[in-house]
């Protein structure tokens, strides 16, 4: 029997994260995405929208938010990472209710999101600042900017984990490619929601969510 939680809120997320026990090694990464994920699922995503977690490392925050929103059965949280579990240390869309892509290898979500957006779907994709080291992302950034792919929004969770950093800021690079790019406090729910709900005609959007490590 599955138990769907429909009444849980942001304050309940820590206890859901505690249920996700085991040998998860990406706690800080996981928590860096927690507020962005909560704002997306609580205030931004409409029924027909798609959210792609490209940065599949540390998915506990993703699983916790899906469970809190009643998308993921709560009991799945208890055997996280076990042989028969649906919940691995990187999510698999075939196994995880609510996961729109399987991710783990970095630099795949944004190109897939471009395809979904080309189909006319309002699509949000979460990447990490370290993940942006992967060149495949920039093929997508360049193309989406030049064709003005406005159904597409990229959220970059920036906890300065890229080995060689992004001198001058990530948002400058997106802006140069024609994106509407802003930087907000990645813990400030109102600022995140405002940036994610903002829409600019004929331009894809980049929201850099800064999170201190």
């Amino acid at each position: 029997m599955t138990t769907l939680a429909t009444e849980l809120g942001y304050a309940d997320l820590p206890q859901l994260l505690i249920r996700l026990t085991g040998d998860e090694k990406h706690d800080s990464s996981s928590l860096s995405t927690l507020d962005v994920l909560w704002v997306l699922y609580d205030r931004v995503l409409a029924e027909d929208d798609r959210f792609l977690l490209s940065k599949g490392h540390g998915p506990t925050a993703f699983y916790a938010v899906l469970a809190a929103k009643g998308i993921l059965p709560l009991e799945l949280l208890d055997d996280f990472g076990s042989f028969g579990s649906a919940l691995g240390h990187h999510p698999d869309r075939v196994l995880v209710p609510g996961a729109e892509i399987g991710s783990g290898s970095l630099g795949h979500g944004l190109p897939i999101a471009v395809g979904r957006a080309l189909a006319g779907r309002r699509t949000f994709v979460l990447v990490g600042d370290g993940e942006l080291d992967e060149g495949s992302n920039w093929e997508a950034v360049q193309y989406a900017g030049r064709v003005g792919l406005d159904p597409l929004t990229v959220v970059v969770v920036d906890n300065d984990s890229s080995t060689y950093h992004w001198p001058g800021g990530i948002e400058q690079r997106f802006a140069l490619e024609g994106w509407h790019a802003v930087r907000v406090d990645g813990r400030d729910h109102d600022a995140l929601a405002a940036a994610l709900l903002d829409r600019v005609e004929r331009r894809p959007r980049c929201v850099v969510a800064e999170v201190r490590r």
Partner: protein
Amino acid sequence: MTMRARFYEAAAQALERDERVALVLADIGVSQLPRHPRIFNVGIREQLMIGVAAGLALEGYRPVVHSYTPFLVERPYEQVKLDLGHQDVGAVLVSYGASYDASREGRTHQAPEDVALLSALPGWTIHVPGHPDEAEHLFARALETDDRVYIRLSDEQNHARVDGGGLVVLREGEGPFVLAVGPTLGETLAATADLDVSVAYLATVRPFPCEALRASVRGTDVVLVEPYLAGTSSAEISAALSDRPHRLLALGVPNAEFRHYGDPHEHRAAHGLDAAGIRASIERF
């Protein structure tokens, strides 16, 4: 008309006929096709080309992805593995260039490894047509499914199409069972014209027709002639005949850095895939 030209005609018609069909390109092929709102040219960005196809497939489209063989299969190989296979969505990948059509372009434009690479990933149907008619038919069939399908187009082609699909036995003899894949059939028939051997033809190599092979092979000796990396289908044949004593000679493009230019027929001869080379190999066998 070449297989490639036939594909462009068929793709343009499919775009008009079926609103699920979308074409994803990375510059190559753009000038051969009409403008259409469901042709997405991403520029010279092959990783994105596969990712976009995956996104379109996730949204219910039937993406057709087309480029030169090394840029379609090798450069974005992880995208093929993860964006299509791991996401559990399909696409039709249509390559041209085969192993050495681009003989003068050198190693960078040659990909005899393509079928072996895609065979290493689960769930791919792999077609190696030997004639433009076969290519058009296989492409039309691929559009009717949501499977992951690879169609390998080549400038090399046989004199006539082979009807029937699957493993087709063209003639029977007492000697080895010679299985020609795709465009190797013409040279294989010339090589064996006066030999007492069986000759069979195969254009769809994955899934490999193990049962048909078991039913067709009567003796112990099998000669496999493939237009790509030698031995690509050896494991399939060994598995199909695992309970029978048998010998296998696998002909194809050697696994070597081949630093020559010239014409495709010179490459074919150098690899022992022309009629003389195939015949010499069979006689040594």
